[in-house]
């Protein structure tokens, strides 16, 4: 049911030419240089270490790897990862 609702929302957003992240809770990831990643619409932390941060999202697991990683800020909808970012991957 959840999947159908999400799919419908995505199609509606596409038909109305709206950004996908506005409709529903699709994650939006912004990389700023190599020192900051902003993840909007996250669903919580899975694992947090200075070399790897795994974040749960509606589209799977977002894995940020790097060195001296830390969480700059975490709110219900928004999460900021700082440190030296080397790699970002979405695992389904």
């Amino acid at each position, binding site marked *: 049911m959840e999947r159908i609702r999400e799919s419908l929302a995505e199609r509606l957003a596409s038909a109305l030419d709206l950004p996908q992240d506005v409709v529903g809770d699709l994650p939006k990831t912004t990389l700023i240089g190599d020192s900051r990643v902003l993840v909007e619409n996250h669903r*919580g*932390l899975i694992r947090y270490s200075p070399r790897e941060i795994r974040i749960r999202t509606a589209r799977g697991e977002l894995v940020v790897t790097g060195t001296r990683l*830390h969480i*700059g*800020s*975490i*709110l*219900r909808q928004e999460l900021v990862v700082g440190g030296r970012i080397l790699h970002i991957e979405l695992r389904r």
Partner: protein
Amino acid sequence: MRLRSVWPVIGGYVIIRAKGGRLEAFINRAVAAGVHLWRLERIAPHLLVARAAAGDFPRLARAARLHGVQLRIVQKAGLPFFLARARRRHGFIVGGALCAALLYGLSQFIWFVRVEGNERLSAEEVLAVAAGAGLRPGVLRDEVRRDIVERRLHLELPQIAWTAVNVRGAVATVRVVERTGLDVDARGPGHIVSAGDGVVERVTVIRGEALVAPGDTVRQGQPLISGLLSSGSESYDDKLARGELPYVRAEGSVRGRVWYRGYGEAPLFRTIDEDTGRVHRLLTVRIGEREWTFGSPEPPFADVRWERREGAWKRPWDVGWTLHVAHEVRRLREPVAEALAREAAMAAALAQARQQMPVGATVVQEDVQVTIDKEAGVVRASATVEAVQELGRFSPVAIGQEEG
């Protein structure tokens, strides 16, 4: 600085240390409960340091209990905690208040006096006169009477044409403008000569001998009151008896009528530019010192109105652009009411005539002649303004030269 980063400092925040095996679950629980955590650092696999608003601590403690995490406050920071500490430290408060009072007290005095605008006058001379009038370092700001200082400067330093005293904080600035072309020896002998052409109306002699009488026509530069005493007069004999040359500094007033002429014209048509809607663009892009131009600099229109738009950045790179837009216009000729053109031409002619008059001249009569030149499409006006004014100006005499 974002509000989100300022608010915790105002509202107070805590630095916490969380110890346990399920720290991610603890964070998720806390965040789900509405807690904002920031600067989370994983010190060790079982140890986490983070910051949270002081008011969120009970919710954090609840989340910690649920996940078996040991929670400890490492530090309390922000304004409420700072104030609470300050309340216990009376010396700190008293010291702060004393410091503020001292600063306030010191700011009530003038500590520096500067002189601006002086060229031939030395700053020391100006400062000495200002100090005599009560403006010197160490005086209370409220005790300085600016009008008195300004007046004293004018009286004691005749080289000053204008002065203003400005007090800003602990600094007082004396701005001076010196007279230009001032006769250095303002007491030397000389004549009163005519400053322009005119007819003498009234002659008042204070010192010297009148050379003209009411009704006389005088030319520019002509002597009006002589500083050279004529032989046989009492003062002439006195001067010679003292072994001095028979010269005085002529003083007096010679008022007379002077005529000023002015010319003005106004068109009988005016042109109005109407956009046709056709445009031609010319773009210039600049990176550092280099420039590239796109488009022809000559627009393919006969009559244009130019519009310029531009943008420039210094950071991160020194780049800029300029867009010149040439709008094609249609020039339309529209007639102007003759009465209006007449008025404008007359006003321009009178303004030009009056502009030549010195300060203090009184207008006695004005006369304007208007001619309408239909062929050239203009109204021409010539004005004559008759004024009564001071005709004389002092002209020093180099005695050695005149005698020879």
